[in-house]
C-alpha cells in the first residue's frame, strides 16, 4: 500500500459519526475516500460550505461551488452556505470537531509547523493557524520523513503554526499521540517496526508495552 493511502485510511478511522470535519487540501483530502459508508459526517470547506460533496457530474460544475483548493465540488443534501466570518467563527469557536492538516515539522511538545519555509517558500498560513488554534481535535497527516530526514523533531526550526499541542500524528510508519509527558507511540505502520520508527524520528518517543500495528 502506498504511504499516502496508509495515512488516509488510518486517519479515516479517527472520524466519529455525526461530526463536523475539515480536511486540508492535498493528502488530507484523500481521507474522505476511506470513510465507511455508514459513518455520516459533514465536511466543511473553509471557503464556505458545510456539507462538501464529491466531484460533480461532467457539465454540471458550478463556478460558485469549489473546495478550498479551487476544485469543483458538490454540496450534499442538508448543506449550508457560509461566509468566511461564519466559517472561521465555527473553527475558532470550537464548533469544528476535527481538522486534518498536513505538516512540515512537529516538535516534542506536539507543536506543528506547516505554513512557511523562511527564504524559500512563503505561501501564507491560509486557514491553518485558526484551524490548529480552534478545532477540537487536530490530526496531522503527513509522511514520516522528508528526503530521508525526520520531520518529527526535538524542536521545530520552522515557524510554528500555533502554540498548541496537536491531538494526533498519523504517518505511514506510526500513530503518535502528543501528551503532557511527551510523544507516545500508539501504533506502527504495516511495514515499520518500533525501532524503524524510533530511528526515523528525531524526537524522543514514549513506548509503553507492546505497540500494536495499524489495522487498515
Amino acid at each position: 500500500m502506498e504511504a499516502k493511502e496508509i495515512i488516509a485510511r488510518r486517519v479515516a478511522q479517527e472520524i466519529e459519526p455525526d461530526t463536523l470535519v475539515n480536511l486540508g487540501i492535498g493528502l488530507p483530502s484523500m481521507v474522505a475516500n476511506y470513510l465507511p459508508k455508514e459513518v455520516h459526517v459533514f465536511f466543511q470547506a473553509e471557503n464556505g460550505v458545510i456539507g462538501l460533496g464529491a466531484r460533480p457530474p461532467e457539465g454540471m460544475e458550478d463556478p460558485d461551488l469549489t473546495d478550498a483548493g479551487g476544485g469543483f465540488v458538490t454540496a450534499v443534501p442538508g448543506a449550508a452556505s457560509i461566509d468566511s466570518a461564519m466559517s472561521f467563527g465555527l473553527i475558532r469557536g470550537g464548533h469544528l470537531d476535527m481538522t486534518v492538516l498536513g505538516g512540515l515539522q512537529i516538535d516534542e511538545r506536539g507543536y506543528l509547523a506547516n505554513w512557511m519555509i523562511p527564504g524559500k517558500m512563503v505561501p501564507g498560513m491560509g486557514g491553518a493557524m485558526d484551524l490548529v488554534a480552534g478545532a477540537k481535535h487536530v490530526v496531522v497527516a503527513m509522511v514520516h520523513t522528508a528526503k530521508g530526514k525526520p520531520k518529527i523533531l526535538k524542536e521545530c526550526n520552522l515557524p510554528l503554526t500555533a502554540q498548541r499541542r496537536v491531538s494526533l500524528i498519523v504517518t505511514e510508519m506510526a500513530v503518535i499521540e502528543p501528551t503532557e509527558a511527551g510523544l507516545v507511540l500508539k501504533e506502527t505502520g504495516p511495514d515499520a517496526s518500533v525501532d524503524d520508527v524510533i530511528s526515523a524520528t528525531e524526537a524522543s518517543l514514549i513506548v509503553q508495552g507492546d505497540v500494536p500495528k495499524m489495522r487498515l
Partner: protein
Amino acid sequence: MKHAIKAAEAAELIPDGSTLLIGGFMGVGSPHRLIDAIVDKGAKDLTVVANDTAMPGRGIGKLVTAGCLSKVVASHIGLNPETQQKMISGEIEVDLVPQGTLVERIRAAGVGLGGILTPTGIGTLVADGKQTVSVNGEDFLLEEPIPGDFALIAAHQADYVGNLEYSLTAHNFNPIMALAGATVIAEPHTIVPIGVISPDSVKTPGILVDYLLERQPDGS
C-alpha cells in the same frame, strides 16, 4: 434606487493609491469585470486586501501581473508564484494574516469595533510587535481593524435598491467586506426588480451599497 454603472466608470472612481477590499477565494466570488476594468485603466500603487491573489491570469492575479499593486494583505499567496516573486523582489509588500483573523479584522472595521482579541497566532511570528491582552488569565492577540477606501463585491443577484444575495462558496469575504468599504461597489451576476429578493434572503442590505455594476452586457 441605485444607478447601474459600467465597469469602466467604476474603475474611474478609484484613485491610484487606494486600499481595496476585494471579495473572492481563489477567484471564486471575485468581481471579475471590475478587476478587468482596473487593469484596463492602468491603476497604480493599489493596496489589495483579499483572502488570496488567486493565480496568474485569474481574478486578483490579473492585478498582480499588470503591476497595479504595491501592497497585498492576504492569508495565502501560495498558488500565485508571481506574487511571491514580486514580494521577494520588493515590488509588492506582502502582509500575511491568518484567514479567520483577516475576516474578523475587516468585520471589526465595518461594525465599529476597536479591533479583535483572538487566540490565533499567539506564540507565532504573527504575534510579533502586537499588543497581547489578558482576559480571565488567557492571552489574546489584539489585531487592529482593516477598513478599505473601496470594497469590490461580487454578488449572485442584486435588486434595484442594491440588496445582495450570494451563491454557495462565492459568499466568502464578500458579505463582510461590504460592511467595511468607505465606498462599496457591487458587481452582481443578475439584477432583479424590487421585491424579487425576499427580505429574509438579503445578505447585504442595499443601504451598504454605493454603486451597482450593470449586469453583464451580453447577458451571460
